């Protein structure tokens, strides 16, 4: 049985990657058979810290409609069906905007002339590698591409087998985050005790509840701000597993691409507490 722990946050820059990379390395050292998944495919930066040796790269595609030459009658059935405005009626034919397509395939089905066919469109790359005994996999969305969710789904489908998966989620609460958190065994919300942190934490908790996930929290930069985040988590019955104080040294090590785990007793303490939580949830 695989146990998947997801690190997410509403607000960006709260410390998801700091904790996810450190937790993955810690678990790999102590329990073995661990996979790190970077699902923050719009800016995947976990590999900057884990520095895996890349053993495989795979291009990921989504199906989009293409018009066969001279078959379309311009009836507009496909345009009426498309919920994303990816098809435009012209005088005697339609025009397809593949960037706007969400790959439902409906247009191909409703076309009475059989004028549309699905063709693959590349949206990003899956990377896989090893960092010591830690198996690492990351999605990297192509520049300018807007659809992160299909790439994240593929990342999860193709996740190398491991007893524990540590997933680094994108920030926010959009489709890409939902795709990354689906099926998680434990959701760790990384937050900070500021009004902005609290505002986005509420959204994340709502999303976690909607997905029916068990949740725990880590408060980063815990000696700044106020107590509103703690009070909120208490009211929601979400346990604060660890708090990491604001330390310039942690930021300096992180900025240099170092692992917080090996350089900061505060990060190590938080990771040990998180590892305990992962044990209990598994």
């Amino acid at each position, binding site marked *: 049985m695989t146990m998947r722990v997801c690190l997410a946050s509403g607000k960006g820059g709260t410390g998801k990657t700091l904790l996810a990379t450190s937790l993955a390395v810690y678990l790999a050292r102590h329990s073995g058979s661990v996979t790190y998944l970077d699902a923050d495919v719009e800016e995947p930066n976990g590999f900057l810290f884990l520095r895996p040796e890349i053993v495989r790269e795979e291009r990921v595609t989504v199906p989009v409609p293409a018009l066969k030459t001279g078959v379309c009658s311009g009836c507009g059935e496909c345009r009426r069906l498309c919920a*994303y*405005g*990816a098809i*435009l*009626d*012209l*005088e005697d034919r339609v*025009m397809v*905007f593949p*960037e*706007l397509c969400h790959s439902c395939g409906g247009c191909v089905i409703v076309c009475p002339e059989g004028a549309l066919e699905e063709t693959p469109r590349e949206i990003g790359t899956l990377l896989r590698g090893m960092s010591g005994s830690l198996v690492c996999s990351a999605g990297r969305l192509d520049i300018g591409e*807007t659809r992160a969710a299909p790439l994240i789904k593929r990342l999860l489908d193709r996740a190398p087998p491991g007893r524990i998966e540590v997933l680094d989620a994108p920030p926010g609460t959009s489709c890409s985050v939902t795709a990354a958190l689906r099926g998680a065994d434990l959701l760790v919300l990384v937050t900070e005790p500021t009004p902005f942190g609290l505002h986005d934490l509420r959204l994340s908790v709502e999303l976690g509840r909607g997905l029916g996930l068990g949740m725990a929290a880590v408060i980063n930069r815990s000696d700044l701000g106020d107590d509103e985040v703690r009070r909120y988590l208490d009211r929601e019955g979400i346990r604060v597993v660890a708090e990491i104080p604001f330390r310039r040294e942690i930021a300096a090590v992180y900025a240099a691409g170092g692992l917080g785990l090996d350089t900061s007793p505060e990060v190590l303490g938080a990771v040990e507490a998180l590892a305990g939580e992962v044990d209990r949830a598994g």
Partner: protein
Amino acid sequence: MLLAFTAAGKGGLKADVDPRFGRAPRFVIVDIESGVTVDEFDNPAVQADHGAGPQAAALVAEHGAKGVVSGDFGPKARAALEGLGLGMWKCKAPATVEETLRLYREGGLEEIKPPR
């Protein structure tokens, strides 16, 4: 011939032109021969996550416009307008729709030609 002008707000010919096409708040449809406003309406594509350009292009075409005057056109808007057979002219902001119409008549607006 009817031309669609992108407008920043209400006011027909007196409205300021908006330099964006797909995300312009309103469209003003003008009969360029008579100089009369035949229609003006909000642009629902303003709220679109993606693809405001093609949606706006379809909308102005439905209203009978044969060309569009705006500040700039994104790549998808351009493709859609070309496909629909609508001409594209670049306006100079700040200016009202009326002033821009006068410039158009004088041949003072740059026409965007499809690449050959």
